[in-house]
């Protein structure tokens, strides 16, 4: 029995060794082939300086691979090693990676908390005097500034406000509402036609996206969250209780689908793609996915109007999904800046925009798809404000704000929810 076991184990071990050897052999063979094929280019690459580019948007990998190839062709003395991390992982680990300067010569930063933390740690290189800063729209730059210096350059521009089905509106003879009363009329008409006005993904991103457009005209002061964190404002004041009351109104009157807090973004997108809902309460970054699900959809933006027409100051919300920056601990800062300069050229930026289906902050970008063309006028012609949520610098305060929305959608009275949230804010800011 023992002998049998030993011989079986030995056999298995030999088999595994054989497999490993074969695998090694194959990979070595492939490597050799690759080396032979690229002997000329590898000689050049040996002399080239390799920079590391880290970011978090997995969906950009293909287009960035192509752009990097073009960059390396134009700059044979520089190669780019790109690493993409899942966004949660990036949010938690990027700072550690940037610390010793060997990773992330060029890196991306979220606006808001992450920008503040990286700034406090001193990992941003000041880009204020770089020529390529002029390639970006002036109006978009502020979010990457601190202490009068341009530390990061917003690249991808998104509109965090509901996307609506234009074709459905035309069929039902609905106009885009410009006041609260018109908005209510529109929602009632949709409901009469058995269509949910807004598909709200309350289980994940619904509250953090929709809070921006819901509050944009309730709290016109763009420093309201800075004041909240410094104790000059409270969530129990009208700007926030009114916003919570609006959420309650939308929920209680069936503007959101039933059980909105249990619906995730995939389910909400499916509702809009199936034309069971007229609007998706997320943002422009979902337009491409919606059109993949239903190519017939013609889309536009329709932020909620929560005030009378004469009180409307802001028409929508914009934000930078990510900002490009150079690691101050890097020893290859010049090469890193060359790469950012390349990304900010209109033809390269246009390629990125069209292949990812996103708007950009770079000047002179030419959008090809109908969806991007139909909505690009929001960049210059509409009065949009920067996403207020990203102006909250304390994660615990942001959680309290979002928690109060979830609380109201769960049935709690807005004032009570605001008080509960304010208590958390005070615990974490005093």
């Amino acid at each position, binding site marked *: 029995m023992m002998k049998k076991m030993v011989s079986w184990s030995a056999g298995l071990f030999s088999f595994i060794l054989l497999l490993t050897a074969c695998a090694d052999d194959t990979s070595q063979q492939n490597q050799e082939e690759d080396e032979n094929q690229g002997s000329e280019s590898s000689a050049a690459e040996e002399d080239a300086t390799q920079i590391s580019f880290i970011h978090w948007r997995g969906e950009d990998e293909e287009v960035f691979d192509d752009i990097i190839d073009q960059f390396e062709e134009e700059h044979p003395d520089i190669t780019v090693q790109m690493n993409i991390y899942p966004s949660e992982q990036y949010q938690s680990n990027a700072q550690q990676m940037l610390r010793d300067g060997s990773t992330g010569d060029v890196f991306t930063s979220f606006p808001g908390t992450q920008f503040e933390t990286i700034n406090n740690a001193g990992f941003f290189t000041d880009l204020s005097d770089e020529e390529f800063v002029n390639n970006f729209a002036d109006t978009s730059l502020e979010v990457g500034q601190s202490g009068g210096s341009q530390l990061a350059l917003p690249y991808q521009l998104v509109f965090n406000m509901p996307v609506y089905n234009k074709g459905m509106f035309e069929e039902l003879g609905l106009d885009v509402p410009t006041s609260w009363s018109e908005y209510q009329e529109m929602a009632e008409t949709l409901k009469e036609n058995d269509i949910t006005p807004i598909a709200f993904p309350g289980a994940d991103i619904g509250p953090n996206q929709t809070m921006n457009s819901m509050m944009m005209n309730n709290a016109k002061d763009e420093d309201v969250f800075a004041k909240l964190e410094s104790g000059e404002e409270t969530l129990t004041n009208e700007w926030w209780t009114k916003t919570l009351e609006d959420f309650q109104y939308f929920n209680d009157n069936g503007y959101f689908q039933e059980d909105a807090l*249990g619906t995730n973004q995939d389910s909400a997108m499916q509702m809009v793609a199936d034309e069971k809902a007229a609007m998706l309460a997320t943002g422009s970054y979902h337009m491409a996915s919606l059109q993949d699900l239903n190519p017939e959809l013609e889309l536009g933006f329709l932020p909620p109007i929560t005030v009378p027409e004469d009180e409307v100051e802001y028409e929508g919300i914009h934000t930078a999904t990510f900002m490009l920056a150079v690691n101050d601990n890097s020893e290859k800062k010049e090469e890193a800046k060359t790469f950012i300069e390349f990304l900010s050229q209109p033809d390269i930026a246009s390629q990125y925009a069209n292949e990812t289906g996103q708007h950009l902050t770079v000047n002179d970008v030419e959008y090809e798809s109908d969806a991007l063309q139909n909505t690009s006028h929001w960049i210059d012609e509409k009065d949009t404000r920067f996403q207020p949520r990203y102006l909250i610098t304390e994660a615990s305060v942001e959680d309290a704000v979002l928690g109060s929305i979830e609380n109201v959608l769960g049935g709690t009275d807005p004032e009570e929810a605001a008080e509960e949230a304010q208590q958390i804010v005070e615990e974490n800011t005093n």
Partner: protein
Amino acid sequence: MRISKTIYFFFIPGLILYALFFLYPTISAIFYSFTNWDGISENFNFVGLENYEKAVTGDSVFVKSVGNNLEFMLFVVIFQTIIALIFAILLVKNTKVNYLLRALFFFPTILSSVSVAFIWTFVYDPSLGILNQLLSLIGLEFLTQNWLGNGNIAIYSLAFTQVWFHAGQMLIIFVAGLHAIPFDLYEAAKIEGATKWQTFKKVTWPLLAPSATIVIAYTTIQSFQAFDLVFAMTGGGPNNTTEIISTYIYEIAFRGYDFGYASAISVLFMAMIALITFIQFKVLRSNRVSY
């Protein structure tokens, strides 16, 4: 018998690993719990007991997360233990069907927690989810719920998933424990005219105590460590109703960049698990018998 000194060298690899992956992080956490380190900067200040004071007296979300975690743990320990025990008794005989059923019940354990979270998020979806659709189909529409979106029941929905995920593992421990009980004790009980319940109470349960101790202690620790499932399914929401201690520590450390405070909560968390496990061992050990 004289033990050669050489034998002590064999402890070294294990000790190094233990020191590197357990002692060092633990000591570091205790050290940083007295600081305001943000996890990135090289500089930090000592803040004494400030972090502990905040956790105990000035952080309502932490208090809520402890409460949620205890609710989650109690639900999982009670139901997982009972379900695993019942199925172990039903499947204790070594027949081909029982082998197959044990393997089936064990199957969820080998899945990754993120896969389990994905499956159950879909099951619980209020409009597209299979659970509500099934309830409607069999005429129990009044039982349909917003399983993860309703703050009153979301923590129990997560706990149920945890039970589904790990009950099979505990079943195997109980089956092993049942097989270790001498058969002549059951024969003696039968001759004495004991009922099935009396046999269970006087023979099976007392002799299963060592297995039960392992199951309950392990389930408790597992319940406190259910980070991935909770994080992937609800992220602690809605409104912190499913926030448990481990997800809250993650929030503070990696979203709030307050490693000092997160370390203080981790130390309190460690002490809490140690205390609960110690009490369980004491209580269950006192129930042990030998015939």
